[in-house]
């Protein structure tokens, strides 16, 4: 029996939901088989990476802290992706956002309070947006592919970070470690007593609703969707493609910068060489696993955060490197992209 792909009359909504879930499940199954074949207890590895963080309540706060930046960055990226704008440099925009926030914090010295924190977060958004502005200008003025320019700027941002925390912004009392001084208490986001759950997590829970409103109900969201799916129709409708590229790049950069400033003020409280931990790249997977849908991004952000927390866990329990989680995350992205075709096509028996 041979099979063929047959175009569906209308895109399948069921497949839109089933394929991300199936990607996660298939990733788990492949993981079990692959690790068993390597002589590691595959079931234990997959259990610790995918399930333990969900089942053990003391791991939930770790998951929430890791999910928040992933969700926020992915929301911004998914707007660009809807317009076929491929910002791969969220990691750099996240770093620059955090640096901008840290710089404003430093400028206030030991002062703190609501308005100082607000200024730091606003600076974070602005810093991320400005960093994203560079690929936007290159793309609209000189037709430079934003995939390359935004990605390369990530490495530039890491150099900026290295310079600042190793030089002008280095903590004078930090035993010469390249890191900024810990934030004064007044510049930290409020957190739940006795936990690491900070206000940034609440922001990550509220933003999906705002993005849903933006993308599904506003003229701007409509413009983004038209430009992404039919550039000619967009022009016919009087929408400006360049303006759309600008706007979506800025939104993506601002969200990454927001995530960076929330991570600084809410979770890490200082910037060191390890500040960039790959959230900006993992968020690309979150955006796709979440089908570029705001609520999908929320769920997918949690799934990816689970695997990151679980990866740490599996290092101690089954003694596999924590980069294993990265392999699983990549496998999920691969499977979701490969199964995309099932939304518009069905598998039919060949006559």
């Amino acid at each position, binding site marked *: 029996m041979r099979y063929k792909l047959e175009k569906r009359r*209308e895109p399948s909504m069921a497949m839109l939901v089933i394929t991300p879930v199936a990607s996660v499940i298939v990733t788990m199954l492949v993981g079990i088989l692959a690790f068993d074949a390597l002589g590691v207890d595959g079931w234990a590895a997959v259990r610790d990476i995918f399930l333990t963080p969900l089942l053990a309540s003391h791991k939930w706060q770790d998951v929430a802290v890791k999910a928040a930046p992933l969700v926020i960055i992915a929301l911004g990226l998914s707007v660009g992706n809807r317009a076929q704008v491929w910002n791969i440099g969220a990691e750099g925009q996240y770093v620059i956002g955090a640096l901008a926030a840290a710089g404003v914090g430093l400028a206030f010295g030991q002062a703190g309070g609501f308005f100082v924190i607000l200024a730091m977060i606003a600076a974070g958004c602005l810093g991320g947006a400005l960093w994203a502005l560079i690929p936007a200008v290159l793309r609209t003025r000189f037709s430079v592919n934003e995939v390359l320019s935004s990605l390369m700027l990530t490495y530039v941002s890491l150099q900026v970070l290295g310079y600042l925390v190793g030089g002008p912004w280095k903590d004078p009392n930090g035993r010469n470690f390249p890191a900024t001084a810990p934030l004064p208490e007044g510049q930290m986001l409020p957190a739940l007593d006795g936990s690491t759950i900070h206000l940034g997590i609440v922001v990550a829970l509220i933003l999906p609703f705002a993005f849903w*409103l933006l993308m599904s109900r506003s*003229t701007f969201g409509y413009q983004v969707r038209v430009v992404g799916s*039919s550039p000619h*129709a967009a*022009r*016919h*409708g*009087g929408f*400006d493609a360049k303006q759309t590229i600008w706007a979506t790049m800025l939104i993506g950069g601002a969200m990454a910068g927001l995530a960076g400033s929330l991570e600084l003020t809410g979770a890490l409280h200082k910037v060191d060489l390890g500040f960039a931990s790959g959230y900006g790249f993992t968020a690309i997977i979150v955006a796709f696993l979440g089908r570029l849908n705001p609520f999908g991004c929320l769920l997918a952000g949690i799934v990816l955060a689970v695997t990151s927390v679980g990866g740490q866990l599996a290092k101690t329990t089954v003694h596999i490197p924590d980069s294993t989680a990265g392999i699983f995350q990549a496998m999920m992205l691969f499977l979701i992209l490969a199964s995309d075709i099932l939304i518009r096509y069905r598998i039919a028996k060949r006559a």
Partner: protein
Amino acid sequence: MTARLELKGITKRFPGVLANDRVGFAVQPGEIHALLGENGAGKSTLVKMIYGIMQPDEGQILWNGAPLQVANPKAARKLGIGMVFQHFSLFDALTVLENIALGMDAAIPARALEAKIRAVMTQYGLMLDPSRVVSTLSVGERQRIEIVRALLLNPKLLIMDEPTSVLTPQEVEQLFIVLRKLAAEGCSILYISHKLHEIKALCDTATILRGGKLVDTCDPKVETSRSMAEKMIGGSLKDIKRDGRSLGAPKLVVQGLSLPADGPFGTALRDISFSVRAGEIFGVAGVAGNGQNALLLALSGEEPTARAAVTVNGTQVGHMTARDRRGQGVSSVPEERNGHAAVPVFTLADNAILTARDRLGMVNRGLLDAKAARTYAGEVIEAFSVKATGPGAMAESLSGGNLQKYIMGREILQKPQVLVVSQPTWGVDAGAAAAIHQALVDLAAEGSAIVVISQDLDELLALCDTLAVINGGRLSAPMAVADAKIDEIGLLMGGIHGETAHAV
């Protein structure tokens, strides 16, 4: 005499559609047989089964009296069945000879093939240089390649799918000479068309399909165009009511409009000037690829031009974007529906927002009024009898003709001051085409200025008050349709084209 091809009770089902319902007719040797029907009547499905692209579910195909199963197009060609498709499969960057060689089932040495091609060309008077690169050829010349390709196989039956839709009247005459010569030598021709006067001029027999069923097999020389059209649509054809229209002051004035070519295969617009008065329908005739697309983009505002090049109601709008021009009352319908006039993956309601959001108030403080869009889409569906499941149907799920009706309706119901349409009835069935024509005339009667860009000269002659011909990006002087001569229009359509194509 045994028929060359005989179909008996051919039935083909697709999910939800009966494309052919017990269709049977016979084509005699040397006969030119018309296959006539509206879009979706089942003509294409039927010839695809004859050419082996699909298999019938029921029924029998007899070839010279013997039952036959055509497994694939290669088998069909081996039997002597050739087909010239409406859309050519040619590589622009290759020569005529290379293109033909690529399309042959057997590998023939280039020199031998060239000799054969030259022989066929001389025999049928098809003038073409085998070493020319396809991109330098006119559409008519490209079609000759496809015909030569089919003739090289010494066909006993040649299927031609809508061959004249892209030709000038003179080119049509030349094609008919070739086809008559072929038929005289005993080759049968199955000629698919909906242009009734061509069928009357060329064909010996006409088989008419409607809704997948055979309606009639008749002699087109005895029938009138009108009687065949009525059989085709299964009802009486309404004439366009054109009276009661008076022309007012100039509404759309185009003055010295020029636009650089969009890419190496585009056509530049050169110094185009014309004006359209309130209540007037202005036609732009021409062979495809002579600047029609650029003209539409320049008028709609998708390609902004010099400020003074386009004036609407006395306001200079040349520099304005499509959105701002809509604000001035300029609507447009481009030729390509999917992906230009409409977003294929959006619903009809969402597609209403694309061009009607400002004029019909579908935006409220930056948020879309989905209900207003749905209501308007519903009105368009109702008023233009669009076959769709409703405002929530995806644009891509509609047939080409239905989507065209929806798009035309979406613009016409906005009551624009100026409406520019390209190919308003391309692929639309005769009944719907009449409805679209009537809607255009009614819109003009209310005082709008209308520009119709079309390759269908019959359509323009029936619809327009004034006519000009576009060729190589230049527009001829306008002429009143009442005293236009077909020969003259044909020369304008084809004349200059050859020269400019070589010069570039």
